[in-house]
């Protein structure tokens, strides 16, 4: 019905024809959309760039649009032949870049801003928007920690870890100007992402700009054309890697016995006659089960997007619908998502334009109640000596009572011991822009973001049996019993308004000023209910449970922020640039005396290429653009706790004196600090933008980012007996360089005539230093110490394996260990003749040496292809337990443990085998033996497509159609022995696996 209103009848048709070329190269452009403005009638250019179109009248206007080029509107003015040269969007000096509260011409930027096109990031077949930023611009470090559908746990840092405050180092994300979350936007709705990296660009967001700002602009409709496009893709996900484990039961059992004996455990060994049964017996009764194989399967994922867009001269609109359904590669995981986004704007009068933007999302995630990592390690912990179920379908606990495992994950999945998380997000905005004159405008936006999460977790009681005897043994470990329902509500409101004033004095003095006000308020509530006893596990709502054991809890909290901001730009003849930004923020989290903070920044730029001595010289033939810029400014961080300055007591320490009634308790549990103030970050950035031969863009930045008065827990001695107050103390310094290189080439003539290709390289490197901290703090394998990188690895260094008793006796004694041949040999770092905790040293590798990425892409005669590589160098991980330490909770050792040290096989690299968590300290003590190199280079994405022009598909009513293959994480080069080197830090060796994706899709425009 809605569509019908847009149908325009074609009257007395007249024909217009012509050829469309690239303005730079003169080459003809195939596939360009040509539409009569305000109608749906149009066509595309053929492979020679020619078009021919019937128009209602020769007084109409034609709109030429093509990806990567600036759209042009051309009045026909009675002509019947119109040739057009389209300007590439990448041409310097005319590209607009989204900055805080507005846009600027790229050539005029004096801050460090990276801009990423929506088309580029939508190439990857990934459902999580945040992951798509990976490797797309220098200085942005993105780590996806998990491949779990809907819970990818993506960590974004801009220019390294800027602070150690509890506030974290996550950047501020703005969706169409309003704080939000990247996960609330479907990838195909993104038109552009700007990353503000330095103080000059981010300080207009003062209080929250310290970790950088990511600004996402969603796509909007264009006047003149009604477009319907559909994109669909079907993908298969498989894990990027699986572990090679000893799953032969007899081998497992023998090694199990050896490990237990080495550990000093003499009970609970597999008798030799039982092992023999597995070697010779029936494989149903005495199996060698590969549990990983049972739990992991290739997973299908499909995605559909439908977009409608168009408009007339006054009004444009875009409506999109998206659907994603992603199964996990492990059984029991699924994510399903619906998105709609409506964006409308209208010029109501000559002076007034208003618009609205609504994004709705419903996400439904299902996963085993104890999360992805737990499911993986629990599966890993199962011995191969039994199957998940007995022959009659009952669930297995163990084959022998002395075996040791975690929960039977097949039973978890089949009994639906799941958490179901349903998330509804509403992002709505309304804005109005009033032009008082050519020089003065007033823009106002109001937004409400509402998030509703419902989390239901059901834990039934499932009996488990002995695999051999069929006797009941235990109940499935599901972490409790009963139903927990948790309802979360978060309402965020934001209202901001600003005036823009632009003027030019004389011929050369260009001036722009902006001043505005913003206020934000956030309220979060949750309500949780629990009932333990359920008659049936099919009825999973609270009322189906008996009220004998039930609990309820709830919470409500809020914060607010009020701000005034401004910006002044001045340039002389577009050669010399000056900019100043200022923000004055007040926060509810800090006491009234200290709550207001002022965040200024200043920047300068010099476009050398515009100087007469360049532009009038021969250098101008190759030096298309050269700009130097420098900026300095201050940013803030207020994101620590909600009420850290107030002296509060806590409801804690309930006690039942008489065993019949519970009395409430209240105690002071922490110190407060009324004198809290803002954490501040100052950034100095010096950069250069260079373009050579109109085709090679080089952007270079050097920065120094210093965070002071860090909001952190004070170091308080235990004597105080209360948890530490938040104080302003500590200083952290990140210094780094960023380099981005883009090269574009259009081949003219020859066999490859018409080939267009791009090569891009991004590189960034930073060093982190904890400048001021206080007394050092030692963690289990890391240290916080002034002058070192944050949380530097701190452990013993191993130097091989003891090979003989003699070697042990001649070596410095190691702790009070009962060191034997085959044990790790620790290095005596301080040369005092004994190995103890004083021999721990700082080991490099907590932060990467550098990050890099490069991409190649090309288009030729309808074919397009791109390759995207991304890598990290010099990052290490301290990763242990399941999959690494043999027999952790019974988990089968990796195959390589067959090469362990024994008297017959005196290995130089692998020690004796010990038994899981019972392994002695001499093996498990944090040492470099467990520290792994996590460097990697991976083929992040391959994308190959072919576009059918309208001459081919026009007959079936399509404007264009593209089919494509997209592959993600297809190749990885890494020395890391764990599952995937892409992980957010140390910890357990295993994670929920990352995905390798093979995706096929189609893109159709009607």
């Amino acid at each position, binding site marked *: 019905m809605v569509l019908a209103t847009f149908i325009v009848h074609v009257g007395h048709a007249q024909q217009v024809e012509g050829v469309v070329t690239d303005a730079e190269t003169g080459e003809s452009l195939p596939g360009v959309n040509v539409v009569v403005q305000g109608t749906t009638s149009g066509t595309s250019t053929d492979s020679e760039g020619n078009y021919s179109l019937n128009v209602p009248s020769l007084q109409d206007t034609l709109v030429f649009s093509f990806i990567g080029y600036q759209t042009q509107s051309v009045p026909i003015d009675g002509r019947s032949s119109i040739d057009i040269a389209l300007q590439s969007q990448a041409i310097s000096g005319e590209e607009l870049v989204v900055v805080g509260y507005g846009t600027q011409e790229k050539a005029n930027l004096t801050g460090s801003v990276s801009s990423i096109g929506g088309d580029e990031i939508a190439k990857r077949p990934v459902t999580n928007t945040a992951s798509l930023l990976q490797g797309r611009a220098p200085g942005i470090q993105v780590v996806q920690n998990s491949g779990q559908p809907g819970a990818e746990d993506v960590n974004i840092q801009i220019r390294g870890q800027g602070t150690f405050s509890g506030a974290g180092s996550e950047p501020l994300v703005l969706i169409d100007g309003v704080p939000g979350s990247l996960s609330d936007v479907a990838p195909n709705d993104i038109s552009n992402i700007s990353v503000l990296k330095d103080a000059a660009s981010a300080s207009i967001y003062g209080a929250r700009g310290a970790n950088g700002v990511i600004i996402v602009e969603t796509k909007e409709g264009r006047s003149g054309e009604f477009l319907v496009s559909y994109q669909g893709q079907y993908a298969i996900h498989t894990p990027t890697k699986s572990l090679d484990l000893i799953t032969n039961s007899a081998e497992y059992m023998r090694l199990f016995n050896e490990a237990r004996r080495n550990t000093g455990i003499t009970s609970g060994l597999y008798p030799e006659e039982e092992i023999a049964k597995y070697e010779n017996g029936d494989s149903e009764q005495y199996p060698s089960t590969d549990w990983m194989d049972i739990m992991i399967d290739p997973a299908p994922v499909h995605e559909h997007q439908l977009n409608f867009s168009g408009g007339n001269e006054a009004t444009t609109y875009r409506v999109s619908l998206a659907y994603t359904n992603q199964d996990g590669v492990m059984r029991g995981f699924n994510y399903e998502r619906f998105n709609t986004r409506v964006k409308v704007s209208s010029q109501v009068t000559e002076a007034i334009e208003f618009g609205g933007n609504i994004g709705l999302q419903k996400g439904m995630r299902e996963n085993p109640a104890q999360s992805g990592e737990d499911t993986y390690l629990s599966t890993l912990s199962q011995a191969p000596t039994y199957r998940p179920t007995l022959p009659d379908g009952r669930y297995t606990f163990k084959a022998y009572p002395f075996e040791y495992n975690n929960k039977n994950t097949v039973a978890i999945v089949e009994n639906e011991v799941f958490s179901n998380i349903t998330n509804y997000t509403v992002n709505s905005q309304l804005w109005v822009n009033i032009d008082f004159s050519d020089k003065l405008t007033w823009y106002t936006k109001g937004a409400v973001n509402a998030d509703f999460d419902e989390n239901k977790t059901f834990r039934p009681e499932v009996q488990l049996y002995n695999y051999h005897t069929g006797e009941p043994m235990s109940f499935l470990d599901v972490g409790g019993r009963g139903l927990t329902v948790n309802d979360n509500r978060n309402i965020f409101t934001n209202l901001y308004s600003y005036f823009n004033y632009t003027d030019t004095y004389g011929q050369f003095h260009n001036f722009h000023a902006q001043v505005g006000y913003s206020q934000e308020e956030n309220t979060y509530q949750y309500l949780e209910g629990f009932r333990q006893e359920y008659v049936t596990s099919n009825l999973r709502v609270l009322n189906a449970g008996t009220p004998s054991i039930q609990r309820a809890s709830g919470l409500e909290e809020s914060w607010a922020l009020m701000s005034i901001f401004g910006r002044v730009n001045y340039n002389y003849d577009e050669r010399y640039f000056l900019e100043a930004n200022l923000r004055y923020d007040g926060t509810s989290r800090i006491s009234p005396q200290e709550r207001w903070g002022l965040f200024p920044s200043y920047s300068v730029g010099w476009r050398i290429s515009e100087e007469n001595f360049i532009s009038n010289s021969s250098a101008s033939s190759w030096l298309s653009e050269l700009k130097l810029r420098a900026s300095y400014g201050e940013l803030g961080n207020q994101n620590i706790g909600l009420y850290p300055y107030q002296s509060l007591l806590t409801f804690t320490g309930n006690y039942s004196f008489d065993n019949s009634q519970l009395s409430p308790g209240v105690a002071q549990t922490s110190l407060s600090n009324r004198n809290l103030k803002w954490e501040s970050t100052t950034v100095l950035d010096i950069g250069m933008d260079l373009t050579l031969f109109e085709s090679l863009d080089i952007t270079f930045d050097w920065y120094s980012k210093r965070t002071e008065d860090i909001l952190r827990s004070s170091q308080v001695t235990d004597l*105080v007996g209360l948890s530490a107050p938040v104080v302003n103390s500590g200083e952290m310094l990140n210094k780094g360089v960023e380099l981005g290189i883009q090269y574009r080439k259009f081949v003219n003539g020859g066999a490859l005539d018409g080939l267009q290709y791009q090569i891009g390289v991004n590189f960034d490197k930073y060093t982190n230093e904890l400048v001021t901290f206080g007394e050092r703090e030692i963690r289990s394998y890391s240290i916080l110490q002034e002058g070192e990188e944050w949380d530097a690895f701190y452990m013993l260094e191993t130097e091989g394996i003891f090979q003989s008793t003699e070697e042990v006796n001649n070596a410095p004694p190691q702790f009070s260990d009962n060191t034997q041949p085959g044990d790790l040999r620790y290095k005596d770092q301080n040369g005092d003749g004994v190995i103890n905790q004083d021999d721990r040293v700082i080991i490099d590798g907590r932060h990467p040496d550098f990050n890099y990425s490069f991409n190649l892409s090309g288009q030729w005669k309808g074919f397009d292809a791109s390759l995207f590589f991304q890598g990290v160098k010099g990052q290490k991980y301290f990763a242990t337990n399941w999959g690494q330490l043999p027999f952790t909770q019974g988990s089968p050792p990796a195959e390589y443990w067959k090469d362990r040290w024994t008297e017959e096989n005196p290995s130089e690299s692998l020690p004796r085998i010990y038994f899981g968590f019972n392994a002695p300290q001499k093996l498990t003590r944090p040492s470099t033996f467990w520290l792994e190199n996590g460097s990697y280079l991976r083929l992040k994405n391959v994308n190959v497509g072919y576009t059918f022009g309208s001459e081919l598909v026009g007959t079936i009513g399509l404007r264009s159609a593209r089919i494509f293959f997209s592959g993600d994480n297809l190749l990885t080069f890494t020395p890391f022995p764990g599952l995937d080197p892409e992980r957010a830090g140390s910890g357990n060796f295993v994670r929920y696996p990352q995905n390798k994706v093979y995706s096929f899709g189609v893109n159709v425009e009607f």
Partner: protein
Amino acid sequence: MKTLKYILLITLVFTIGACEDFLNKTPNDQPTESTFWQSQRDFEIGLTAIYGDMAGNGYPWEEFAMNSVLYPNLDNLTDNSYGQHNYGGSQQLVQGNITPTTGGYINDAYSHSYENIARVNIFLQNLQNFEGDGIGEEVRSDYEAQARFFRAFNYWKLYFFYGAVPVIKQPLTLENQNQPKNSAEEVFNAFLEDVNFAINNLEDVHYSENGGHLVKASAQALKARALLYNGYDSNGNPQPQILEQVRDITQSIMQGGYSLATNYVDVFREGTQEGNPEIIFSAKYLAPDKIHHGDQMYGDWLVVSPLPSFVDSYEASDGEPIDQSAVYDPENPFENRDARLTKTVFRDGPSFEEGGAHSPTNDVPTEYGLKKFLEPGHLPYGYATLSDQDWVIFRYAEIMLMYAEAQNELNGPNESVHEAINPIRNRAGLPDLDDNLTQAEMREKIRHERRIELAFEGLRYYDLKRWRIAEEVLNNVDDGILSYTFEEKHYLWPLPQSQIDQSNGELEQNPDY
């Protein structure tokens, strides 16, 4: 004109939005300091939180040393058992890798003690500053006595583990947080001051009659236990002046109406704890909202694994060691034994005479597990288990054994010594001790009796230390999975390195570390 309309509209929105209080936000789920401590009810609630702090949930990764439910884990530092999870760093400690940076108990015994002390200090300061009506003198001193009992308990713990530490009697702030150490003697005197105040001001009724609140005997029991720790010098020689005090205090408790429960397990099982004549103080729990995880920790996870040598040390039912007994059957080692064996230890998995059994999910490294505190009514054991059996902190059997020990050291194995120890043995189905034991023989019998009767109540480490036999006993454990090392200096632990580092030089490390 149209433009003006818009301008007015936007201005209106801002006028509504911006008001003075916009940036004033306070939490709705926490009282503020300025509004609390205003009535007797507030002080009752504050006192409750002091009790509540002692009754933790029993998850060892959340709380260690303060937690009653985790006392059994302390036996993992001794010849009684092995701790496969290394909670509290028990494996490092057993192996003698005791340094200021060992962590685990070395840190937690310190921090948890001061945490509880701070809670008491804040309570006492507010009580002292309270000027309103409604709290009578008697109530005031009773509150103070209850609070000071807990402070005493913690100072004693600090004294026991570290010796000399700072004595803190006022709430501290960031400005005065660094305090120098007091001598061990001063720490003990601070303990005595508090415990004596508690003894003098707590209700003098049977614990079962005081609604779960502390009574005089609870404080007396604490004082006796602490004094007994000082009852031997560093060579293990008895100190008669101190032992006399122990004897007198225990004697006084023995006149307070306490008696042994009929069954050994009654003390530890849920249905038989309320009104139990043996319990002098316990940490109380109430399902479903105040629970612990003792059944899960010991019955399913095997946080404590008794050693075979410990199991072998139980006498046969004829009162003889198993290698000398005529009734002991190596084929059926759990039969014809001290009845406490099958109540204290299970093999492979817990099972109960009254029915019910459990198959543990965790490893059973020594073949044995700890059954003593398990409640059959809570089967099966797991995360959903709502354990609420009270955790006994002082009970009459310990008082009798303390009396017997002090009296034997002072006056030899006289009749009163036999009268104190025999009922405990008889309850376990064992015969009376031989009337003709020498003082030295009786000493060994009492020491053995303590190891068995009080097994896993967290007292073995205390006994080994105060008798000065830790080196002799621990360095000879040969079935412990770990290789045991105990040196002279380990009688006191080092202070945590982090505390030395952060003290601005105020805090001195213990000698030898």
